[in-house]
């Protein structure tokens, strides 16, 4: 066995990742989909869905979601995080079910979805 085949013995290049991430920000964050919640004034909340795969059209997804969960929402383009879906109210459970649903939803792997918040 040569030293090249052993992962641990490779010399560490601190800039190896940096160059990759310049082109595409999304690949760095392990492609997790983050569902977050934010409190607004009063009892109101805001749900954000960040890091949906690029192959999906966010606007179309939003349209379906809005209809399905009876809430309003927008697609926000963030400089760092890319496109983020914002929904009114606490839709975390709904969104998660929608994303993992194979029949009516996107059929994504549940492991790639991280739900944050209380």
């Amino acid at each position, binding site marked *: 066995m040569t030293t090249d085949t052993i992962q641990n013995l490779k010399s560490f290049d601190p800039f190896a990742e940096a160059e990759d991430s310049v082109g595409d920000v999304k690949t760095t964050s392990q492609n997790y989909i983050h569902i*977050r919640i934010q409190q607004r004034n009063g009892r109101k909340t*805001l749900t954000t869905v960040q890091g949906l795969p690029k192959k999906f059209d966010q606007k179309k997804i939003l349209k379906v979601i809005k209809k399905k969960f009876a809430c309003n929402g927008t697609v926000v383009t963030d400089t760092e995080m890319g496109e*983020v879906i914002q929904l009114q109210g606490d839709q975390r459970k709904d969104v998660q079910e929608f994303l993992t649903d194979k029949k009516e939803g996107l059929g994504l792997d549940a492991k790639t979805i991280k*739900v*944050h918040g*209380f």
Partner: protein
Amino acid sequence: MADTKPRKSVAFEDSTTIVDSDGQVTESAGMNGDKASAESHAPGDDKEVDEVSDMFAGLAKKKKKKVKTEGEEGEDVLSGLKKKKKSKKPKEGAADDFEAQLAAKVGDEKEEADAEEEIEGDMMKGTGIWQHENTSPVPYNMLLNRFFTLLHSQHPDLMSSGSKSYKIPPPQCLREGNKKTIFANISEICKRMKRTDEHVTQFLFAELGTSGSVDGSRRLVIKGRFQQKQIENVLRRYIVEYVTCKTCRSPDSELDKGENRLYFVTCNSCGSRRSVTAIKTGFSAQVGKRRRQQK
């Protein structure tokens, strides 16, 4: 006995069920008992957190069921018995807390001792059936009772190693004004978890999607309204992610910054070392009218 018990990995302290000798269940003001608002709020989707909270849910359910069995002696009793209660005496049932169970057992013991003094005797004093010269066979139940009583009184630490339940004091949440929550005992909790306040604070803020500050007496002031239960949920997730060892599930671990700016959790009981993800805040939408000054 210990096998049937669900294994709690994270428990908050004052959620004990005390089963009296007459079978009465007194629930101390634990917040695990009533799962109202935060449960409905929280999706609990992390697998492990789910696992943990499932256990809590189970706990709560069991408690409720038991209370019910006393009130209405219907089919519920039977089903409850079959499902949940494995011990011989249905009265004390499958209390999750071993202590409670033990207390109940001991209480029962005393009750029985009153009734049939000659047969039982005092296991501590060595009278009756426990007499040294006594040749009559001792029932298995009583032997088992004696074993656990002795073990409990003489080696309490041995008992605890059998059923791991990691206990941290429950978070104390106060409301400051209308829009802020004070997390009062964060330093105590952090000390128990052996983590820095800053790290826990960072995690809390990232998860809750808010910000806050530390006040004069080292309490954490969080913007937004949060209930104790919600904080508890987040803390539980923190413990699963950053405190418990994934290999041996021991909470006795240390977080340190390794080479190249990664955080590592080193377990003190099994010696394993794993890297943990840095806390990332992620996208946070602008809430309120004025946009925060961006640089």
